[in-house]
C-alpha cells in the first residue's frame, strides 16, 4: 500500500489550472454588467484551458512511484504540522479531467441555456467559482485544504441552487442543501480533530503513513466522521434529502454539480482515504452498507417521481450509492470507474433534459410531455443512449463500471451488498425507461409549449442551437464507449493499470473468494435489467398504455403509496427531530428565558434597589421628632454595644 505525497516541486501548470477558473469567477463577478454575454465565453474558455492544462499535466501526475506518486506543490504553512499544498496524482487527475472537461462542456452549454437571463454573468461567475472550488477540493494535499474545497463547493452549489432567488422554493432548497452540507463539513472537522490529536499533522502522506499504527477505535471514528462529510456531500442516506430539492437550480448546474462532480466528492474522499478504510473493516462495512442502501432507496424513490429532473436526481443518488459502496468496500477502481462513466452519461441525461425543459418553457413534469420523440429527435437519441448506459446494458460505459462495482462488493466479502446492488440495477432500468417512455412515446400531453410560444414571441433572442447541442453531442461518445475503451479487460485494462500504483492490484486486496464468477454477475445484472425494462414497457410503452396515457398517469399519481409520495418520511423525520425542536428551543430561550428569567433577574435587582430606596426615603418623613427618634435609636444601639463590649472585658 502506497501513500501518495507526490514529488515535491514547482508545477506552474497545476497552479495555473487551479487558479484560472478563480480568475474567471472574479472577472465575471466584478465586470459582469460590462461583459454581458462575453462572460459565458470567457468562463468556458478559461475552464477549457484548465482542461488542456490538466491533460498536459498527465506526466506530472503519474510521475514517481510508491510514496511519491504525482506532483506536489507546497503553498503555505499556518503552524508546524499545518502545511498546505497541491497534490496532483492519478486519483485527483481523473477528477480534474471530469471537473474541467465535462465542466467545460456544461459551461459552454450554459451559454445557450442561460441566454437572456437577467443575471447571466453572475451565473458564469458562480460556475467558474465552482470549478475552482472543486479543483481545490481534489488538488489539496491535506485535510484542511480538502475541507476548504469541500465548503466552497457547497457554497457554489448553494449559490447555484438558489440562483433564481426570487423563487422561495429555490431559496429554501439552497438553504437546505447548504445546512446539510455543513453537517457534513462538521463531521469532517471532527475527523480533522481526531487526526490532529492523534497524528499531529493534516497532510495526507503523514496521516496515511501513521494509519496502521492507529488504534482500531480511533481509525473507525476517523472514518465514520469523514464519512459524515462524504454522506452529506454525496447525498447518502440519511443526509440525501437536499439533492432532489437542489433541482431548483438551472439544469446545467444540476448536470455539473449535482450529477457529475460535486456529489461525487464523497467518492473521492473515500478513495483518497483508502489507506484509512483499508485498515478499518468496520468502516468498510458501514460505508459499503450505506452506499448500497442509498442506491436502493434512491432507485425506489426514483420510481415515484414525475419531475424529470427529480427522477434524474434520485438516479444520481442511487448511482452515487453504487460508487460509495464500491470505494467503501475497497473496490476503488470500480467505484472510480463508475464515477467516471457516470459523469458522462449523467451529464448527458441532464443536458438532454435541459434541452427538453428549455424547449418546453421550463416544463419539467413528464406527465405533461409525451411524444417528444418526434418533436425533438436529437434529445431522444441523447436520452436513449444515456439511459442505456446508466442501466448497464452490455457494451455501454455504464455496463463496465457498474459490473466492476457490483462484483467488487462480492470480491470484498459483502454478499448482501452484492444482492442489493443487483436488485437496484433492475429498479434503475425500470424508472429510467419509465422516464424515457412517458416523456418521449405516445402523444404530446402538455399545453406549455404552445402557451410559451404565444406568450413570448420571437423578440427573446435565442442563442444558436448548436451551442447547446454540440456539448451534448460530444458527451455521447464517452458515455457510450469509454467503458469499452478503458475498462475492458479486467485486471489488465488500462484503467486498472492506471490505478495500480495508487491502490495496488484489486485481486490482491480482495479478501474473499467470490462464490460466483464475474460472468455470472453480469448475467444476473442483465436479467434484472431486462425485468425492469419489461415492467416499464408493460406499464408505459404498450399500445394500450399509450392509448389512455393521461388517465392512467393521473390514476398512477393518485394511487402512489404514501410512503413513496412522502419520500420515505426522511424530510418529515428531519423536520420533527431537528428543525422544529431547534426552533421551539429558540422560541423558548428567546421569548421566555432571556427576557423573563435572565434579564428578569437583573430587572428584579433594579426593582429591589429602587424598593430599598423607597424604604429609605419612607423614613424621611420630614418630622424632626421622627429624625430625633431614629437618632436616639441609633445612639441606643451604640451605647448598648459599647456598654456590652466594655462589660465583656
Amino acid at each position, binding site marked *: 500500500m502506497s501513500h501518495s505525497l507526490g514529488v515535491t516541486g514547482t508545477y506552474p501548470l497545476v497552479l495555473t489550472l487551479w487558479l484560472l477558473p478563480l480568475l474567471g469567477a472574479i472577472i465575471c463577478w466584478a465586470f459582469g454588467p460590462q461583459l454581458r454575454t462575453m462572460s459565458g465565453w470567457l468562463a468556458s474558455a478559461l475552464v477549457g484551458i484548465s482542461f488542456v492544462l490538466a491533460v498536459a499535466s498527465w506526466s506530472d501526475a503519474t510521475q514517481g512511484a510508491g510514496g511519491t506518486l504525482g506532483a506536489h506543490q507546497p503553498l503555505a504553512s499556518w503552524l508546524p504540522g499545518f502545511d498546505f499544498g497541491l497534490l496532483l496524482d492519478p486519483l485527483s487527475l481523473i477528477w480534474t479531467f471530469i471537473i474541467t472537461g465535462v465542466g467545460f462542456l456544461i459551461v459552454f452549454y450554459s451559454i445557450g441555456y442561460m441566454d437572456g437571463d437577467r443575471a447571466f454573468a453572475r451565473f458564469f461567475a458562480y460556475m467558474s467559482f465552482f470549478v475552482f472550488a472543486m479543483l481545490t477540493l481534489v488538488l489539496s494535499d491535506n485535510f484542511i485544504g480538502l475541507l476548504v474545497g469541500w465548503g*466552497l463547493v457547497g457554497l457554489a452549489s448553494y449559490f447555484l441552487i438558489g440562483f433564481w432567488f*426570487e423563487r422561495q422554493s429555490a431559496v429554501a432548497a439552497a438553504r437546505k442543501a*447548504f*445546512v446539510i452540507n455543513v453537517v457534513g463539513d462538521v463531521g469532517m472537522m471532527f475527523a480533522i480533530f481526531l487526526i490532529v490529536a492523534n497524528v499531529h499533522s493534516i497532510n495526507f502522506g503523514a496521516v496515511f503513513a501513521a494509519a496502521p499504527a492507529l488504534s482500531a477505535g480511533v481509525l473507525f471514528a476517523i472514518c465514520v466522521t469523514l464519512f459524515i462529510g462524504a454522506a452529506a456531500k454525496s447525498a447518502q442516506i440519511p443526509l440525501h434529502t437536499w439533492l432532489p430539492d437542489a433541482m431548483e437550480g438551472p439544469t446545467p448546474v444540476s448536470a455539473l454539480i449535482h450529477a457529475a462532480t460535486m456529489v461525487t466528492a464523497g467518492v473521492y474522499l473515500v478513495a483518497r482515504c483508502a489507506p484509512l478504510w483499508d485498515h478499518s473493516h468496520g468502516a468498510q462495512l458501514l460505508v459499503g452498507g450505506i452506499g448500497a442502501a442509498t442506491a436502493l432507496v434512491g432507485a425506489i424513490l426514483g420510481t415515484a417521481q414525475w419531475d424529470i429532473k427529480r427522477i434524474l436526481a434520485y438516479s444520481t443518488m442511487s448511482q452515487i450509492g453504487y460508487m460509495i459502496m464500491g470505494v467503501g468496500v475497497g473496490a476503488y477502481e470500480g467505484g472510480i470507474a463508475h464515477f467516471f462513466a457516470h459523469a458522462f452519461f449523467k451529464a448527458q441525461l441532464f443536458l438532454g433534459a435541459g434541452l427538453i425543459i428549455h424547449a418546453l418553457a421550463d416544463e419539467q413534469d413528464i406527465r405533461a410531455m409525451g411524444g417528444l420523440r418526434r418533436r425533438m429527435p436529437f434529445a431522444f437519441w441523447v436520452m436513449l443512449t444515456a439511459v442505456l448506459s446508466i442501466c448497464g446494458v452490455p457494451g455501454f460505459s455504464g455496463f463496465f463500471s457498474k459490473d466492476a462495482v457490483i462484483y467488487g462488493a462480492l470480491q470484498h466479502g459483502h454478499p448482501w451488498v452484492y444482492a442489493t446492488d443487483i436488485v437496484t440495477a433492475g429498479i434503475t432500468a425500470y424508472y429510467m425507461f419509465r422516464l424515457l417512455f412517458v416523456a418521449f412515446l405516445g402523444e404530446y400531453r402538455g399545453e406549455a409549449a404552445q402557451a410559451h410560444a404565444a406568450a413570448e414571441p420571437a423578440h427573446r433572442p435565442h442563442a444558436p442551437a448548436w451551442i447547446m447541442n454540440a456539448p451534448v453531442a460530444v458527451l455521447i461518445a464517452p458515455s457510450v464507449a469509454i467503458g469499452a475503451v478503458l475498462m475492458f479487460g479486467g485486471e489488465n485494462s488500462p484503467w486498472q493499470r492506471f490505478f495500480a500504483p495508487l491502490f495496488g492490484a484489486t485481486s490482491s486486496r480482495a479478501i474473499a473468494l467470490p462464490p460466483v464468477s464475474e460472468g455470472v454477475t453480469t448475467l444476473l445484472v442483465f436479467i434484472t435489467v431486462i425485468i425492469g425494462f419489461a415492467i416499464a414497457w408493460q406499464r408505459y410503452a404498450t399500445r394500450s398504455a399509450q392509448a389512455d396515457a393521461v388517465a392512467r398517469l393521473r390514476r398512477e399519481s393518485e394511487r402512489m403509496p404514501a410512503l413513496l409520495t412522502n419520500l420515505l418520511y426522511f424530510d418529515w423525520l428531519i423536520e420533527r427531530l431537528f428543525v422544529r425542536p431547534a426552533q421551539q428551543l429558540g422560541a423558548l430561550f*428567546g421569548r421566555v428565558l432571556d427576557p423573563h428569567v435572565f*434579564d428578569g433577574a437583573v430587572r428584579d435587582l433594579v426593582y429591589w434597589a429602587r424598593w430599598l430606596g423607597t424604604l429609605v426615603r419612607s423614613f424621611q418623613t420630614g418630622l424632626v421628632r421622627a429624625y430625633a427618634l431614629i437618632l436616639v435609636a441609633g445612639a441606643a444601639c451604640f451605647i448598648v454595644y459599647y456598654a456590652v463590649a466594655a462589660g465583656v472585658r
Partner: protein
Amino acid sequence: MIVLATILLPLVAGALLFALPRQDRVLSRAIGVVVATITLVTVIAAGTTSEWSFRWLSRPFDAAFHFGATPTSFWIALLLTVATACAIAASREARLRDFVAQLLLLEGAMLGLFLARDLLLFALFWDLMLLPVFFVLIGWGEHPATAWRYFIYNFAGGLTLLLATAAFGVIYGSTDVIGRAAGPLVGAWAPWIYAGFAFAFLVKTPVWPLHTWMPPTYSGLPAPMVAVVSAVQSKAGLYGFLVIALTLLPHEVHAYALALMVLGAVSLIYGAVIALTQNDAKRIVAYSSLSHLGLIAIAVGSGNPIALRGALVYIVAHGLFSAALFLVLGYVEEREATRLLARLGGLGWKNPKLAGALCIAALAALGLPGLAGFAGELLILIGVYQAGYVWPVIVALIAIVVASAYFLRLYQDAMNGPEVPDVPVRGDLTWPEALAVAPLLAALVVVGVYPAPLLHP
C-alpha cells in the same frame, strides 16, 4: 512615545471635533476617517517594540502610565483602528459631528485599554470605554432602557474589576504587569481576585447568563457604533482572559476552567438557537456574537496553545465579520427603514453589491472554510480537542450547523425572495459606502487564507 501618540491622537481629535460647527457633516467625517487612518498607521509603526512609561503611583502599589503593544494586543489594536476607520467612513447618523467624536473617543479609550501594560490603567480605560457607548445609547439609541441595561451590567463588571485590581495591586505590589513574565499571583486571595476579573470579563464578552444587556444594546446602537463595539469592545474581556488572567492567575484559570467552558458552551448553543428564531436582523447578529464568543471562552478554558492561537485568530475574525455585518445591516436599514426580516426581501436584485457584502460577511460568520471565521474556529476546536475536551467540541459543531441555518436565513430573508413591493427602491451601495466595508471583507479573506502572522506572535 509613538504608542502614546497613538492613544492620544483619537482622544484629542475626538474632543477637538466639538469645536467644529454643530451642523457640520462632511468635515467631521473626513477628519474622523483621516485620524483613524493615521492611528492605524501609528499602530503599525509602533509595533510591539514601542513603549512609553511614566510613574503613577508608588503606594499602595506600583502603577505606571505604561503603554505598549503585546503581540496579542497589536492585532486587536490593528483590528480596532481598521474597524473604527470603516465605521466612521460608513457613518450617516444625525448630529454627525458628535457621533464621529464619540467614535473617536471610543477608539482612543479602547486603544488605551489594549495598549495598557498596567492593570490599573487597564481598569481605567475599561470604564472609560463604556462612556462613549453610553452617550451614544442616550443620544442615538432607540430605547432608554437599553442604555440602562448596558450601563448597569458593564459598570457592575467594571467595579468588580476595580476591586480585583486593587486587591491584586495590594497583594502583588505592582500593577505594572501586563505582558511581562513576572510570575503568577499566589495565595488565598487569588481565587477571589480571579472571580472579580472573570466577572468583568464575562459580562463584557458577554457570556451566558450575563448577556442580556447585549442584544438590546447591539440592536439599539447605530450601526457604525455597534460595529466597533461588537468588533472590538466585546473582545476586551477575552483579551483580559488571554493576557491578564492566563499569565497572572494561571492556576485559577486552570482550576475553574470547567466552569468557564460550561458557560462558553451554553452561550454557544444558547445564542445560536435564539438567533435561529429572531426577527430583528441586528439581534440575530447579536445573539450570534454571544454564540461565537462562547467559543473563545471555551478556548481560554482549554488552555491549549493551538486553541489560544486560534482564539486570537477568531477574535480578529469575529471583529472583522461582525463589524462588516453590522455596517451592512446599517446600510440595509438606511435603505429599507426596517431591519425586521419579515419585512425585508428581494434586495439582491437591485442591490447586488449590498447583497455581496452581506453575503461575504455572513459566510465568514458562519465559518465558511476559506474565510477568517473558519480558520479561528478550526484551530480553536483542534486545540480544545487536543486538550482532551470532547463535549465542548461537539457542542461547538452543533452550533456551527445552527449558525449556518440562521445566517443563511438572515441573508436570504433580506436579499433573496421576491422583491418587497411597498418599499421605495433605493440605489445599490455607493462607492464611499462600499469602500467603507471593503477593507473588512478583504481582511476576512486574507486572514482566512493566511492567518499565519497571527499565529506566530
